[in-house]
C-alpha cells in the first residue's frame, strides 16, 4: 500500500450517550470539535445538550453549560429534574452551570471567549455548551466580529480537546457559523394535520461518514430518544447473508401440505384477509411450534395481552406454557402511539435479545399508521425484512384487507413483494346468505405449492382447513356466475404475477 492510500487515523469520539444519535454519527462527536445544534424553540436543544453533559460526566468527564442571557439557572435545573439522565450529585463538580452574561455585556465577545477558555482550562472540561448563539450574533455588531468569536471558540475546542456545542434557532438563512463549525445537528418539529412529529438531521459532519437524511426522535422522561431510519441503517443487512434452508411448520398440518412442507425457513409470509377471518389465529398456530431452539415472538398491536392470552387459552392452550417459560415473548404496543422506526427498533431488539426464529407480527397496517410519510413504507419494510431474513427469522405478518367481501382484494401496501416472499390469502365468500371462509397460497419463495383454494373454519380449537378443495370449488362455481374471482384476477389485483397452475 502506498503512503497516499494509508487511511488517516480515526479521530477520537465523544459519545453523546444517545444511542440512536451515536449510530447516526458513527460513534459520537469528534473530540475537540465545534458543533451547532439548531432547532426551533421547544425542539429539545437544551435537553439534548444537557443529556450530553450528564452522559459525559457519568463517564468521568466534566461539562460546563454556559448561558448568555440573564437566565435563571434554577429554573432550567427544575425543568431538567424530571428527566432520568439528570443527576444532581454531578453538579457542580462535574457539570457546572455558568452565566457569561456579565462578561458579554461589559467586555463584549472577546471577554466571553476569555472566560470560556479559562473555565475549560481551570476545570479541565471535556464538554462545553454555549446555550443561545443569538446573543453573541446580535452583540457582535458585525459579521467579522461574530466570525472571529466562533473561530476563537473553535481554536479553544481544539487546543483543549473539549468538545463544544452551540445552540441556536433554526432558520432558512445560512449563517456564518454554519460554514465554520465541524458539524450541524438540525432538530425539526413538524405538524401533519393533527399530528406532530420531530426529526433530527445531520446537515454537516466533518471527518466522518454519517447516516444522511431525517431520523425520528422524541422527548421522553429519559431525554431525547433518536431512531435512525431503519432503511438507512439497514441499507446493508447487519450480518453476512447466510442461506438458510429447510421448512418451518405453520402449525397446521393442512397448510403445511399446501405449502409443500411448511414455509421456507428465514422467509417472510404475508397473511392477508379481512377483519375477523382468522389471521391472528393462524399466526398463533405458527408461533405455537416454537421451542428452546426456535424461540418465538408475537409482536402485536390490536389485541391487548389479556385478550390475546384468553384467545390462546381457548384455541392454542399449548402456547401458554411456552409464553410462561419465556420461549415465546408477547410484545404489545398500542397502534398510532409511536413512530414507525420506534416500532422497528423494538422489534429488532426483541429478535436480537432472544435470538428469535419464529416471529408473528399481528397488524402490519399499524406500522403504516406509525409513518407520517407513506412514501417511506416500501423501503422501510424492504430493509426490515432483509434484516429478519439475514437473522434467520421466519416471519409471518398479518395484513388486514379493508373490504370484507372483496372480489378483487388489493394489498394495502406499496410494492407488496418487498414485504413478503410468500403470500397467503384468506377470503370470505357469501353463498345463500351464509359466509364461508377460503384460504389459498398465492406465492411461495422458490417453491412449488398447492394452488387450490380450500374452505376453512374457525373452531373452538383454532383453524380447520378442509382436506380437499371440493367445497371451495362448489362455492366459487356458484360465485363465478356473478363474475367473481378466479386465480388470475386475484393475482392481478394483489399486484402479483399470476402463478402457474399445477
Amino acid at each position: 500500500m502506498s503512503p497516499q492510500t494509508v487511511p488517516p487515523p480515526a479521530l477520537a469520539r465523544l459519545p453523546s450517550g444517545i444511542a440512536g444519535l451515536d449510530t447516526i454519527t458513527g460513534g459520537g462527536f469528534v473530540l475537540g470539535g465545534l458543533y451547532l445544534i439548531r432547532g426551533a424553540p421547544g425542539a429539545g436543544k437544551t435537553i439534548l445538550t444537557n443529556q450530553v453533559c450528564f452522559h459525559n460526566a457519568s463517564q468521568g468527564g466534566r461539562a460546563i453549560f454556559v448561558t448568555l442571557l440573564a437566565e435563571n439557572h434554577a429554573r432550567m435545573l427544575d425543568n431538567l429534574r424530571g428527566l432520568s439522565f439528570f443527576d444532581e450529585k454531578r453538579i457542580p463538580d462535574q457539570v457546572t452551570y455558568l452565566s457569561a452574561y456579565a462578561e458579554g455585556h461589559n467586555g463584549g465577545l472577546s471577554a466571553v471567549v476569555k472566560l470560556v477558555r479559562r473555565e475549560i482550562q481551570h476545570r479541565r472540561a471535556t464538554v462545553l455548551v454555549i446555550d443561545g448563539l443569538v446573543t453573541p450574533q446580535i452583540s457582535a455588531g458585525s459579521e467579522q466580529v461574530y466570525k472571529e468569536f466562533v473561530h476563537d471558540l473553535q481554536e479553544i475546542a481544539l487546543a483543549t480537546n473539549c468538545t463544544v456545542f452551540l445552540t441556536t434557532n433554526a432558520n432558512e438563512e445560512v449563517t456564518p457559523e454554519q460554514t465554520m463549525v465541524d458539524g450541524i445537528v438540525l432538530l425539526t418539529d413538524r405538524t401533519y394535520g393533527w399530528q406532530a412529529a420531530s426529526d433530527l438531521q445531520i446537515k454537516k459532519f466533518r471527518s466522518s461518514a454519517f447516516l444522511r437524511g431525517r431520523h425520528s426522535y422524541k422527548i421522553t422522561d429519559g431525554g431525547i430518544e433518536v431512531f435512525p431510519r431503519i432503511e438507512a441503517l439497514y441499507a446493508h443487512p447487519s450480518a453476512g447473508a447466510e442461506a438458510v434452508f429447510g421448512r418451518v411448520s405453520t402449525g397446521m398440518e393442512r397448510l403445511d401440505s399446501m405449502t409443500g412442507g411448511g414455509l421456507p425457513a428465514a422467509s417472510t409470509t404475508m397473511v392477508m384477509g379481512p377483519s375477523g377471518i382468522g389471521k391472528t389465529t393462524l399466526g398463533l398456530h405458527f408461533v405455537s411450534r416454537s421451542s428452546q431452539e426456535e424461540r418465538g415472538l408475537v409482536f402485536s398491536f390490536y389485541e391487548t395481552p389479556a385478550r390475546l392470552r384468553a384467545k390462546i387459552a381457548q384455541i392454542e392452550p399449548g402456547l401458554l406454557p411456552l409464553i410462561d417459560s419465556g420461549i415465546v415473548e408477547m410484545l404489545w404496543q398500542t397502534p398510532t402511539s409511536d413512530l414507525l422506526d420506534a416500532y422497528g427498533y423494538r422489534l429488532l431488539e426483541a429478535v436480537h435479545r432472544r435470538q428469535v426464529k419464529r416471529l408473528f407480527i399481528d397488524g402490519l397496517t399499524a406500522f403504516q399508521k406509525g409513518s407520517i410519510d407513506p412514501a417511506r413504507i416500501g423501503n422501510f419494510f424492504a430493509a426490515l425484512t432483509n434484516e429478519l431474513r439475514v437473522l434467520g427469522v421466519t416471519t409471518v405478518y398479518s395484513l388486514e384487507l379493508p373490504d370484507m367481501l372483496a372480489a378483487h382484494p388489493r394489498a394495502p401496501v406499496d410494492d407488496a413483494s418487498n414485504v413478503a416472499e410468500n403470500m397467503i390469502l384468506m377470503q370470505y365468500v357469501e353463498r345463500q346468505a351464509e359466509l364461508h371462509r377460503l384460504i389459498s397460497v398465492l406465492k411461495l419463495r422458490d417453491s412449488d405449492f398447492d394452488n387450490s383454494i380450500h374452505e376453512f373454519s374457525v373452531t373452538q380449537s383454532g383453524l380447520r382447513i378442509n382436506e380437499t378443495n371440493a367445497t371451495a370449488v362448489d362455492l366459487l362455481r356458484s360465485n363465478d356466475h356473478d363474475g367473481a374471482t378466479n386465480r388470475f384476477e386475484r393475482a392481478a389485483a394483489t399486484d402479483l404475477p399470476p402463478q402457474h397452475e399445477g
Partner: protein
Amino acid sequence: MATVLIVEDEIGIGGLLEDVLLDEGHSVLIASNGRQALDLVAKDRPDLILTDYMMPVMDGATFMKALADQPSFADIPVLVMSSLPEEVVAERCPGYAQFIRKPFSIFEVIDIVQSLTRTSDGESEAIP
C-alpha cells in the same frame, strides 16, 4: 516570569496562546511571520520563542536559520509548532528545543513553556 515571543500567522491560534501565556504570568510578544519575529528578537530579546513552521513572508525554518546565524540569539530556546510530522521539521530547522504537533493541547504547551523558561536561565535543552 519570562518574555515569550509567539510567531504565528493564524490569528486564532496566536491569540489563544497569547491569552493563555498572559494568564500564566508571562509577558508576550506577537509576530505573524519570521521577518517580524527577527525584528522583535533584535529589539526585545525574548526568553523563549514559540514559532509556527509554515508562514508567509518568512517561514519558521528560515527564521530559525537566521536566529542561529546570530550568536547573541542562538541560545534562546525555541518551541516549534507544526501540523507536519517532527521528522519533516527537524530536517529543515536547526537546534530547536522542543517540538509540538498541531493541533496541540494547551495543557501540553503550558507544561513545555514552564520547563523551557525554567531552563532558559541556566542550561538550554536545545537539540544539537
